[in-house]
Structures are given as C-alpha cells and as structure tokens.
C-alpha cells in the first residue's frame, strides 16, 4: 500500500478495465482473480495513474494488459527487480507484482526472496496453479510428487515448494492465502494493500487445461466448511461450522485438530488467531492439508520499516548539508595547478 495514494476521486470497476481483449483460456481461474482485483481497487481508493502492475512471464503475467493502470510486462522471473528500481525511483507509486509458481518460485525464486527480505512496499500476488500453463503443461516447482506432465511422463519425483512457507522463511512480514473464486479474495487483497511493506499473497488458481481442479479437495463449495480454515484476527481458529478447531500440542510443539463440543472452543484449547504471532504463523504455513484444513486468509501481518523508506532516509541523511557541486567534485582528490612557473599543489 501507499499512504500517498488515497484520493478523493472515486472509481468504479469499469475504470480499472482496459479495452484489450482478455486472452486467457475460457474458464481459467485468472478471470476470477482479475475481476476480484478490479472490484477491490475502487474500494481501497487508489488512483489508477499511481498504480503500476508489474509482471514476469507466464499466463498470470499477462495481467497488466487488462488493468487500466500503468503496467510493465517484463521478463521471466524478474518482476521483483523491476519493481524495486521503479519503487526506488518513485516511492509514491502503488506497485502490484503479478507472478506465478514457475515465474516467482523457479526462475525468479532468487528475486522473490530478496524482494521479501528487503521488505519493498508492494503487493505480490503469486498465482499458484502447480503447473506451467503457457509452455503447455510441464510440472512446476509447486507440483505435487507424482504429477504426470509432458516433461514428467512417469510422474515428478521432486518435492514441491510451499509458497507461503518460502515467503515467511525469506522474512515476509505479511503472508496471506486465497483462491481464485473465493468471495473472500477481495478482503485478502485489501488487507495486503493496507500492509505497509512487502505483502505476499498466494492465490490458488485453477488451470482448467493442464491441471484442472487440482485444488478441488479444499476449494469445492460442497463441504468447504470442513476443509477451509479462514483465519480472522482475534478470533478462534475454528472450522466445520464451529465443531472443530486448531490447538497447540504444547509438549510436541506442533498444531493439532480438536473437536469443539457445544461451541466451547476455549475448553477445547483452540488458539485465538494473532496475526503478529510469527511462531504460530510458521506452523500455519506448514500445516499439511488433509490432516488439517487449508489455512486461508491473513496468516501473518506485522509490519516493519520498508526498504525504500530506509533508502530514501539514508540518502537524505548522507546528502544533508552537502551541495551538489559537481565542478567542485571534479576538483577533488590529488590535484595540482600548472602555472607559468610550473606545477604546485
């Protein structure tokens, strides 16, 4: 988010749509995410001209073309680096990075890590569909073991990266999760924007051509209450209509699921979600779906000073009281003057 971007001029969803024909496959989860973002922007009240969408390469990275803002579709994996230079050049801009599991965690994993550890003020939307879509269906760094694809006809053997755990491990101060068609997604985006610093959002996205319904086990509307844990600040971590909850096994130091009887979550030892609790956040991002519900919403949110603010502050302090006298600078160092009488210091 950016403090400077709040403006009086109201916008509507239409103001954020471009005249470009959207070129994703019919039924792609990206459409839902695009709509969610376009619906959220008027609500957070930023100005389109102060907003920049920066992307890498991949299906998700076509996103900027469809947002009536400034946009930069860059090269594979490097969007965080472009965003860093752009934000340092103009800290007033509100920057959204759009990336995918291949773009942001494979070819660009290094940049994602450094953007997060530096804590550049921006929103990072990582569309995770567990597949390379634009290159026609190869397995990706988040594909589950055994994924068959053109490049892994006998099934993939390498263990997948976990985006939220990766982000938190890199030092993220904001980690959230949502999925393409979730009605909660705009709220997640709003919270990410409200966070000053690098806000990392993993968005599960359904690639209907190459990895159809891979998230159906938790994203399907039917039975969703039993499989989704929507985290809310200050509220107990309960799901399944309040009949189950997440508690801490204090001896083994890990989370466990407990039954909540008659709504008495306290008696069951259910934890109250505190978005600033980093230890619990580490456990939430590692929670294995199946044994546990899928943790969604704001997993962690505890701001720290941002990179660009510190750079600006240091630049100002270092320049304090000094004049930009280039002619004077040229004359510095080991100098001497040649006169008719010869050289002298």
């Amino acid at each position, binding site marked *: 988010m950016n403090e400077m971007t709040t403006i009086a001029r109201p916008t509507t969803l239409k103001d954020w749509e471009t005249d470009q024909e959207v070129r994703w496959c019919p039924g792609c989860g990206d459409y839902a995410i695009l709509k969610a973002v376009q619906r959220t922007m008027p609500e957070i009240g930023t100005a389109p001209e102060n907003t920049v969408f920066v992307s890498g390469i991949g299906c998700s990275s076509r996103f900027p073309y469809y947002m009536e803002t400034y946009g930069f579709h860059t090269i594979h994996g490097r969007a965080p680096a472009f965003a860093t230079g752009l934000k340092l050049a103009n800290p007033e801009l509100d920057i959204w990075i759009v990336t995918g599991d291949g773009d942001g965690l494979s070819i660009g994993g290094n940049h994602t890590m450094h953007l997060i550890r530096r804590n550049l003020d921006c929103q990072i939307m990582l569309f995770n569909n567990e597949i390379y879509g634009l290159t026609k269906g190869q397995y990706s760094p988040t594909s589950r073991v055994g994924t068959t694809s053109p490049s892994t006809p006998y099934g993939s053997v390498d263990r997948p990266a976990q985006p939220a755990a990766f982000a938190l491990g890199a030092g993220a101060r904001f980690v959230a999760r949502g999925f393409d068609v979730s009605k909660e997604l705009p709220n997640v985006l709003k919270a990410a924007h409200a966070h000053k610093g690098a806000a990392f959002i993993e968005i599960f996205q359904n690639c209907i051509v190459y990895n159809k319904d891979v998230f159906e086990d938790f994203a399907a509307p039917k039975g969703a209450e039993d499989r989704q844990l929507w985290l809310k600040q200050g509220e107990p971590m309960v799901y399944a209509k309040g009949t189950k909850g997440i508690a801490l096994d204090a001896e083994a130091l890990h989370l466990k699921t407990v039954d909540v009887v008659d709504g008495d979550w306290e008696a069951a030892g259910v934890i109250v979600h505190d978005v600033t609790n980093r230890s619990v956040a580490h456990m939430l991002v590692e929670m294995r779906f199946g044994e546990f519900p899928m943790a969604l919403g704001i997993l962690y949110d505890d701001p720290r000073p941002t990179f660009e603010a510190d750079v600006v502050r240091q*630049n100002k302090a270092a320049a304090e009281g000094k004049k930009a006298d280039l002619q004077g600078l040229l004359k510095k160092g080991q100098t001497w003057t040649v006169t008719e009488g010869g050289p002298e210091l």
Partner: protein
Amino acid sequence: MATAVEDRADGERQSPLSDAVVVRFAGDSGDGMQLTGGQFTLSSALAGNDFATFPDFPAEIRAPQGTLFGVSAFQINFGSSAIDTAGDAPDVLVAMNPAALKTNVPQLKPGGLIIADEGEFNDRNLAKAKYDANPLEDGSLAKWQLLKLNISQLTMDAVKPFGLGNKEALRCKNMWTLGLALWMFDRDRQPLVDWLNAKFAKAPDLAAANVAALNAGHAYGETAELAGPLKQHHVDPAPVAPGLYRTLTGAEGIALGLVAGAQLSKLPMFFGGYPITPASAILHHLSRLKEYDVTTFQAEDEIAAICSAIGASYGGSLGVTSSSGPGIALKGEAMGLAIMTELPLVIVNSQRGGPSTGLPTKTEQSDLYQAVYGRNGDAPMPVVAARSPGDAFECAIEAVRIAVQYMTPVMLLTDGYIANAAEPWAVPDLTTYEAFPVEFLTEVPEGGFKPYGRDEKLARPWVKPGTPDLLHRIGGIEKEVDTGHINYAPGNHQAMTDIRKAKIDGIKVLDQVVELGAEGGKLAVVGWGSTFGPIHQAVRRQRAQGADVSHIHIRHIWPLPANLGELLKSYDKVIVPEMNTGQLKTVLRDQYLVDAKPVNKVSGQPFTIAEIESAIEEALA
C-alpha cells in the same frame, strides 16, 4: 596521458634515462606496491611530468606470501614530453622479494637497474619463487645493473625509535623504497610527508615511523650515490597548458561522467550494480554521491541489477548498470527488453580477459561482439568505447545523451586497464558542456496519445507512471506501431524491426577524425578503446622516421561514424590492433568491405609501443 601540449618524442630514445623513464614497483600483495605507485604518481604530477600508469595485481585477495602468483606490481611512465602509455620495458625495477624479481625482471630493459631487497632473499622465499640459487649472488642478472639493499633491515633500523612491533615496522618498507625513488628522481618529499601525517592522523606513531622510513630511504640515496649504480636523474617538466589538473582513473572518469550526464539531462540517477572485478569501483564511487541525486542499489545478482535500472528508467530516472563480461552476459535478456520497451539505459562494461571467468584482473577488449551483436533477435544497440580515463568522462556523457535522446539502452565499453590506470586530467569546465534536458510527456498531445508514436529521431515519448491520462502498458511482446498494444501480425513485426534498426542507424555521431597523420595514404592503424596510447606513440615514432602511416581511433563502435567507410578506403592498407582475436576488424570488413588486417594480442597485458611499431613496419614492408 598526453596532456603535454607539444610532442617532443622523436623516434628512438638515445639514452635509457632521458626524457622519459619507466619505473616498475613489484612486491608481495601485502607490500603496499599500489600505494607506493600511487604516491609516486602524485609526485610525478607535482614535478610537472606527463605520465601514465599501469597497476597489475593478482586476482587473489591475500595470495600466500612470497608466491609467484601473489606478486603485485605498479608501473609508471613519466616524462618531459607527451606520454601515451605506461611504457614498454621498465628502466628501473624495484623488487621487494624473489617472486617479484622472477615475474618482472624479464621485461626489464637490458642495462636497466634492479633495486632488490636482499633481506627478503632468504631460502624460504627463494624456494617459494622456485629459484634453485639466489639470483642476487649467482650472476644470472648480469645483463642488468643490480643494487642489492637490505631494505627490510634498513627500514627496521629507521623506525626503531617508534617502538613498533616487527610486523608493523616492516610495513614501512614501502615508504623507505618510495623515499629512495623520490631521491632518484629529484623529487620533493614534503607532499608525501603531509599525506602520511593526514593518513595516520589518528596514529601519530605510525605517521612518524612512516615519515622516518621515507626520510631514511631518501637519505640512503644521497649518501650511497657515489658507490654504485645508483644515480640521481632529473626529468624536466613536460610543457603543459596552465590549468587545474588531477589524477583520474577510468572508474572515476566513468562515475563522474555519469553524474555529469545525469545533471546535463536534468535527471536523477539510479545505479543498479552487483560486485564484480574490475567494475565494482564504479559502484563504490557513485554510492558516496548521494547529494547528486544518485541512488545506488547493490542487487542480488547481475540480472536484478539491470532489471532494477530499467525499472527506475521506467519510473523517470536515468537507469545505469555496470559489470564485466560474465555479468554482461547475464544481463543480455534484459537489454533486449530495454530495446523492445525503448527505455533509456546505460550499461557499462569494464572488459576483462575472457571467456567465462577468464582473467578477472587482467585487461582485454574481447567483448566487442557481445556489445554489438550479443542479444537474441534483431536487437540493435549503440556502443561507445572509451580510450582513456579522461575520455571515459566524455564517453559517459555521450552514452547518457544518446540513451535519453533516442530512448535506447547504450553500451559503454571500457576495460580493466582504463578502469585502474591513472592519468593526469585537466579538470574540465562544466559550463562548456551543452545541456540536453529531458522533457517527459505530461499531457495528451494533439492527435491523441500514442505510447509508441515517434519524434523526428524516431524516439518514443517518455511518460512517468503517476501521470494522469497517459496510462499505458509496455512489455517485451512485440508492440503494435504507434499504439504499443500486443501485436503478432507479420507486417507489424517487419515494421517494428525496421523502425528499431532505423532509429539506431540514424543516431547522429561526430564524423571520424584522423588522430595523427593524414586522410588517405599508405597505411591506417585503426584502434578503439585502451589501445590508444601504444598506437598513438607507435604511429608518432614511425612518422618521425618518415613512414606514411596514420592513426584512426573509433569512439562510436555502433553506429559507426558516417564518414568512416570512405575514410578507410582512402588508405592502401588498414591494420587493426586489438586485445582480442580480431573483433573490430570483422565489423569493419563487414560494414565496408575493406581489407582490414588484424593485429592481435590476448595476453592480459596491454600492447607495447614496440609491438605496434613492428606491425606498422611489417604492413609497410
């Protein structure tokens, strides 16, 4: 280099120590030879000599003491007339240990003087330098004059009153040596004394010990003069135009030129860099210049360095990145994006020996193909090459000018030799430089806003994000003419490829001049970059002997000056000395169908004047 207003070099020098002298200080990496050389350089400047230097140090940070690969050397050529190179063969070699002697003595001129610290020629050091016998004793140095001094002991004696430990006392050896060198060339010690006192202001004992060592070395020269080969020699000042001078390295020249370019274009500068030898010095210089509206960013890798710079250019800053060959290779894809999105950017390549890691601390000019051709697709990009530290200042400004006026990335080539070498530089008057302020597009122009519309130079408008009413998207996918929308149509790609090429081909650069000699004749020696010095001096000497030879030195490698083809065709023969296997030669043959012949050297060392002279003689034979 060549600040002297009048050239007095006239063919072969009669006496080895006459109007110009070459001194080489060589020692272990820890002996402080670069510092000694730097201070001797200042003293040469104050004596009014013209000079050029060549620091030659190992890639290892702290190579094991006494080893052959741990030798660090600094060569200076100073004289009373124009000096173009750091000199071919040294007249004087100061060898602080056996390894320094072994690696450097082969280059010493026959009859030249060796000053050796015999205190370091013990069994252990001789073994490390792989000497079977002590060369100071076995007569193997007979073709040179040898002065053996126990510099270690003499230094220890001189600094004894200051109660330093053995190790600290021995660190003063380089000042003792410098003191002796100052006496040899009749130099004033006071500026060095002042410098030492300032340097060790917080440790007065160290200051006093170093001054004592300096004085002792000087006094040794005075008293020992009559005994042996040591003679005092005075080199007259070179006739130099009055004005303010300073020493300037190439890295300083680039950094200052970039700042000047940013000021002339009225832009803040953003510099994205990643540590790499020998380019890091530019990042170091710029990171201290915050008050000049310079933001420096040490990125996580070379790719992030250039991408952040492009991001900053997109945001309205002057984006700059810098590296050496291996890092430039990593930046290739991003350069293509800057070409496609038509954003200004300056990419500095401080070339070093390649391929791969190659020779990180040695010089080479082998990235010319990479600069001109090294990207995927038809991706034309201007290339400017600096010939010397002072010229690097001018070239940096030129690179910025082209980048912002034509909305294009520009490659600025320098090399390890220019980056580290120092030369006297007449401080320019900035008011004499014409400003080229950038005008961003801030409102919808008449006829509507076209992100890929063009001005008379074929440059597209530069719009800063944050500007109302000019919202648009850019990216690496082929752009539609004018609108900049994604467009894969065959005709559109042809049109855009043609436009990108025409824009770069149409860049206005100054006509090529002949540096020395005449337009037309028997032979042109065509160079670029840091070979300027040896080519210039060699052509001057050959002309003094009556040879019909001219020197042409190309700054604009791409696009080439409009008159260059005709100019080259006005000579019977063209030779192209390069520190590579013939890269500019290939470009010239391709562009002009001239029979340019290569003269190549890829030893990690600059050309000597003699090598170029032989090439000229051979071509004219």
